[in-house]
């Protein structure tokens, strides 16, 4: 179960399990955690449990709430987050709440805000917000992929370095000959997209599969000729 470890000036003052759907932190004694300090508001912050999430909220406090040294109004707690109220530190410990993806399988929510049959129909609601769900960890992974690019040897602006920082980029003449260069965790690959000829790497056809690229490889499709480079790897003279 999730808990808060409360400390002041590096001295641990107590452990509190988040065993209620609404958990309050403030100065007055009715709070679930009562912090006796004039800089703490009567009810300073609350933690609301929503299924697997603990959502921390500043309840219009005078002196604010910090999480990992940043001021927040509302925040979904992640394992090892440090909450600061005045001189107090509250460390949130919950092995299940990793910033990384949880591995739980899809399940039916037993805390759904409305049941499946009384949910307002889409047609009666003006606009529903669109939800982008791609996890942050997925983005973080992407930034760790190696970075490379190509230079046109033919069929494009010469000498211009084109960095490929997106997951893929296509080259060639649409409708005639096109290839894809894709950026993956361990490097870059060339793949045939369209046209009667497969792409060539260093003069050899790569066929109908993804071909791993090495620095200084020369890639050809139709009239287009490219050289692959990686800025952080030494180029051959």
């Amino acid at each position, binding site marked *: 179960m999730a808990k808060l470890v409360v400390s002041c000036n590096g001295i641990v003052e107590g452990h509190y399990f988040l065993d209620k759907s609404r958990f309050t932190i403030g100065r007055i004694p009715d709070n679930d955690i009562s912090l006796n300090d004039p800089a703490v508001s009567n009810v300073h912050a609350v933690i609301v449990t*929503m*299924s*697997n*999430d603990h*959502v921390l909220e500043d309840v219009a406090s005078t002196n604010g709430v910090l999480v990992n040294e940043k001021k927040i109004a*509302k*925040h*979904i707690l*992640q394992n090892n987050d440090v909450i600061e109220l005045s001189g107090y530190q509250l460390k949130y410990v919950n092995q299940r*709440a990793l*910033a990384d*993806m*949880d591995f*739980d*399988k*899809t*399940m*039916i*929510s037993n*805390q*759904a*805000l*409305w*049941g*499946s*049959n009384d*949910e307002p*129909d*889409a*047609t009666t609601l003006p606009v*529903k*917000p*669109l*939800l*982008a*769900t*791609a*996890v*942050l*960890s*997925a*983005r973080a*992974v*992407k930034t760790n*992929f190696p970075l490379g690019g190509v230079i046109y040897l033919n069929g494009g602006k010469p000498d211009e370095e084109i960095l490929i920082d*997106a*997951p*893929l*980029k*296509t080259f060639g003449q*649409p*409708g*005639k000959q096109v290839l*894809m260069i*894709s950026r*993956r*965790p361990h490097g870059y690959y060339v793949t045939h*997209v*369209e046209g*009667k000829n497969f792409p060539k790497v260093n003069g050899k056809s790569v066929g109908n599969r993804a071909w791993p690229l090495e620095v200084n490889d020369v890639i050809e499709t139709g009239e287009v000729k490219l050289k692959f480079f990686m800025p952080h790897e030494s180029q051959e003279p």
Partner: protein
Amino acid sequence: MLNRPKQGMTNYMAARSHFQVEVASATDAGAIRKHNEDSIAFDDELGVLVLADGMGGYKAGDVASSIATGLVIDYLRRSLSEIEPAPIRSAGLSLESLAVKATVEKINLAIYKTAKTENKYTGMGTTIVLILFHQGLATIAHVGDSRLYRLREGRLELMTHDHSLLQQQVEMGLITTEDAKVSHNRNLVSRALGVEAEINVEISEHEVHPHDIYLLCSDGLNDMVDDTDIELAVNELRVNLPLTTQQLVQMAIDNGGHDNVSVLVAKVKHKVTGWRALMDRWFDWLKITGMNTSWRN
């Protein structure tokens, strides 16, 4: 090391639609899970594509999702054969959409009963998302957090709203869409087939344009790959539909592949008949032989 996605064939669907539809698909268990509980199916004759993401105990999710996709084709084949394609639409949903709705409701009951009668299937359920092309329209139906996107004129649009706790929280303003990205509730759906005897199927009808691309996917795609990257892949690779689906699955795996990932893609084309088909074949031949046919576009 390389987790090669299974790749579907390219098919052409005609059926009741004014358009021809090219289809391709790919599915993979992902980088972490052993079983693939997703299920996909399509039928050229009917012009229907369906995807289901199963949930529940050992292999039960697999059972629920394959019942769903299998029965969609069976039931729709029967009920659509009784509907005359009607060019004039009355107010409200078309007969085809009503047939889709009734079909999904029937499937819900079938899965519910199976789960009730067999111990090993207790608690199983599945999401479903499907699209049916008829006349100049597409009927989209879904339950749960499997999605349907449409690419039109280079822009990717989400056509379904997840039936999930997260979506409900965002709709109620309890959390922002930014918060949603760090939530631990992404695995909780608020509706699924097979859980209760009755189900509220979300259904909508849309006009179809030539060159539209429709993408059905399980949350293993949109949880791992940003919408902008999905848009990029579909835009850039649309001439090669099997590669498009393979690339999307590969991107999900490269980004971590925490879940099963499935994609089913349909590209809308003008229906070609008679002399038009012959002309097209002739132009394809010119293209293959390397002649310049760009004046034709």
